[in-house]
């Protein structure tokens, strides 16, 4: 089944038709989606800005990774759920959209970057502070992570403007 055929099939399912016909569902789900993005992006900023030494230098980076990185994964689950509802309501407008596809690639990269940052701190909270090399690596990962999450927000907003489905 091609992507296009899948979109056409999905758009005819009862769930999709309901989302299409009840006008408040899409803006309501989008509102929840944006609120969750606010949580994720602010948590990411707090951790990354600490890793870059921009804020909270009186506290170890471990205080930041343990306080804020933990918010990201459960919030991502809500983002995937609300995102799936939006896709179900408008399959072609999202799945066949270059902005959406870009967003998904950036999302995977951002999740990998976050996991790479977080994993060693679960065993040893001070991991990124133990040597100059690690501090520099953490800073580089922080810059990459910031760029990816900002890119995700931009790509997400552009979905509305790069609609190739011709709806």
């Amino acid at each position: 089944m091609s992507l296009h055929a899948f979109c056409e099939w999905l758009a005819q399912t009862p769930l999709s038709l309901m989302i299409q016909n009840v006008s408040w569902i899409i803006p309501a789900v989008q509102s929840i989606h944006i609120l969750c993005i606010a949580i994720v992006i602010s948590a990411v900023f707090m951790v990354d800005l600490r890793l870059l030494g921009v804020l909270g230098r009186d506290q170890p980076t471990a205080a930041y990774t343990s306080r804020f990185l933990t918010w990201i994964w459960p919030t991502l689950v809500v983002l995937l759920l609300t995102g799936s509802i939006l896709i179900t309501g408008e399959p072609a407008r999202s799945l066949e959209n270059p902005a959406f596809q870009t967003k998904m690639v950036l999302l995977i990269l951002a999740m990998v970057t976050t996991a790479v940052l977080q994993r060693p701190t679960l065993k040893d909270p001070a991991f990124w502070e133990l040597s100059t090399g690690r501090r520099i690596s953490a800073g580089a990962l922080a810059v990459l992570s910031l760029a990816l999450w900002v890119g995700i927000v931009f790509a997400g907003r552009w979905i509305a403007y790069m609609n190739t489905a011709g709806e």
Partner: protein
Amino acid sequence: MDPQSLLQWLYDTPVGTAIRENGTLFPWIESVHVLAITLVVGSISIVDLRLLGIASKGRAVSRLTAEVLPFTWVAFVVAATTGGLLFSSNAVKYAHNTFFLAKMALLVVAFANMMVFHVITSRGIERWDTSPHTPPAARRAGGGSLLLWMAVIVVGRWIGFTMSAF
């Protein structure tokens, strides 16, 4: 100058016209606007959750606000500037949009809530600064702020669904 002609003047400015007529300016500015708003709301929530005694309990309230709120303000200035630019592209219509007006009213209430906290509630902050248990007035300020900013995002999203295309 009456409000109507002021809105029309804004609509006719080169900036407003450019954003309205150029196909990509609006989404670019809107993307920055959304990014800035998520940072405003997310960073304020960090302080709100501390005031509610839910998160960051090991960090003094004054320390946390000194560290987070400067970023909130930078993000707010960016959000207000980009918001103003988007507004100028269709000033008359936005000014008559119920959700836009609700968003502005919510911002005023959120600002008042913040001023009450900074001017009155935080006066005796030394007594509870480092305690995870904050006084009722501080909890009310945190809870109120959280709800108000969530509402700002919700009505903001609804503006886009109630403004027909240019």
